């Protein structure tokens, strides 16, 4: 009935072995999890655990060595790079660690970029884009170039750039890693607010336990290489969650301790 939107089964990945050398180690092996529609799933893992690789495989920009990925019940092409469709025909959005804004476009042109590419540019979509721009506090900065924006502003622009074309699933790869603590809290607030408006399905990867608990409905813990899902935690803390007073919310400390013990 409530079939998972995205399912990963026994996913495995290792990088191609050079001829005549030892087979390279498995980065990911036997990784299985599922995501329901409208769920905010966070995945915690130490750096180097293959988090980005996992997301790359789901987004179809990297091929898997073994295993399956199912989207809305149907398997998507793996292992054969010709059959891969990056972004799964725009059903999977991907917010990467680097903001990857096009430096020669203004903020608003960057946000409109996916609509342009997809041929969806019209008054309605432009208005939607402007609404997102206002929602994350970038109003007035539409004509600025990326190098004129602060790190946090660029992150926001990258974020709404993915939101603007409404992919059902959004992958996020430590998007708030490289900013200072204040900005990060602000971005987390913005993200939660936007998510509440749209209830998208989000798979959010991070190394920060607090962030994982704060944002997610469910948090999965990734083991070290060869990575698999080590544990699953349902975050029982009710929504809406207050970012600023989060650390003192009831229930937070226990979940945090539980997870921390596993990650270490």
């Amino acid at each position: 009935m409530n079939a998972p939107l995205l399912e990963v089964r026994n996913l495995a990945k290792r990088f191609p072995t050079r001829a005549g050398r030892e087979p390279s180690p498995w980065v990911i092996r036997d990784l299985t999890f599922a995501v329901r529609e409208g769920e905010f799933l966070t995945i915690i893992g130490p750096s180097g655990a293959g988090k980005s690789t996992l997301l790359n495989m789901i987004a179809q920009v990297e091929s898997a060595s073994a295993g399956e990925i199912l989207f809305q019940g149907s398997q998507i092409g793996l292992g054969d790079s010709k059959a891969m469709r990056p972004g799964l025909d725009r059903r999977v959005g991907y917010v990467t660690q680097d903001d990857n804004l096009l430096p020669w476009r203004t903020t608003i042109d960057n946000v409109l970029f996916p609509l342009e590419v997809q041929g969806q540019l019209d008054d309605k979509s432009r208005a939607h884009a402007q609404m997102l721009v206002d929602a994350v506090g970038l109003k007035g900065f539409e004509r600025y170039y990326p190098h004129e924006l602060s790190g946090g502003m660029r992150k926001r622009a990258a974020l709404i750039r993915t939101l603007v074309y409404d992919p059902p699933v959004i992958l996020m790869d430590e998007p708030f890693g490289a900013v200072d603590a204040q900005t990060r809290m602000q971005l987390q607030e913005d993200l939660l607010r936007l998510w509440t408006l749209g209830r998208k399905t989000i798979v959010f990867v991070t190394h920060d336990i607090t962030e994982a608990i704060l944002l997610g409905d469910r948090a999965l813990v990734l083991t070290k290489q060869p990575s698999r899902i080590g544990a699953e935690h349902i975050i029982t803390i009710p929504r809406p969650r207050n970012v600023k007073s989060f650390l003192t919310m009831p229930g937070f400390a226990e979940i945090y301790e539980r997870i921390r013990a596993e990650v270490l």
Partner: protein
Amino acid sequence: MTTIDQATTLLEREPPISRKTIVIMGRAALAVLLVIGWQAGAETFGSIFFAYPMDVVRRLIELTVSGQVFVDLYATLRVSTIGFVLGTVAGVLLPFLLRRSKRWTEAIEPYVLGSQGIPKYALAPWLILWFGIGDTPKLVIVTAMVFYIPFVNVFAGIRGVDQRLVKMARIVGASETKISREVIWNSLMPFFFTSLKIALPRAVSACIVGEFLVSTEGVGHYIEHARELSDTVGVFAGIVVATTLVLAVNGIVEYLERRALAWRPTDRDMVL
């Protein structure tokens, strides 16, 4: 569903022909194609415009056997080298001298940059007027062409020197000369060598071209003289010699650079 074992075979399977082989074969094929094209060109357009490859080869052998090619090569290299040395010395010295005085630097900078725009070859007829047909006009042109390369590079290098190092040296009492020699020269090294690497082939090139206009000897002269006599084979042969010469000089310089800088972790390459 791909199992782990299938995945292993999938990944481990090497392509039948390695990429390297394809590239080498491709290059060989292209080279052969070019020669065939050359031959075809000669047959289509006639030997006035297109010398036959075999004729060119024969002429090259003749020139080698008779020693003529060496006479010309020597003439070209002689002038190129002297011009290269003069141009480099001037191009390196001037920034160092200017370093002492910001005032002088600003005063003459626009003129040096302005003079860079003069097409040096255009000076050739006037130089011939003065010095006649001999080494001097070529020498002047080569020197002028070479000069700007180290000048711009060394200048930029000096400006790029970490000013904190210079300040430190001054504070501990180093004289200006000492600062020039130690701090600046060392920071400069990569820029300096890069500019040398560019300048030497450029000098040879410039000399060859200069010889078109003013000369009785040298590789460039051979080409132009052949053209005047409608000796197409000679033109082709001369171009082959000229190209080989410059590419060889290029190659030698690159080889020396690789040897000298083998220990360097980073490459600071300035384009052109």
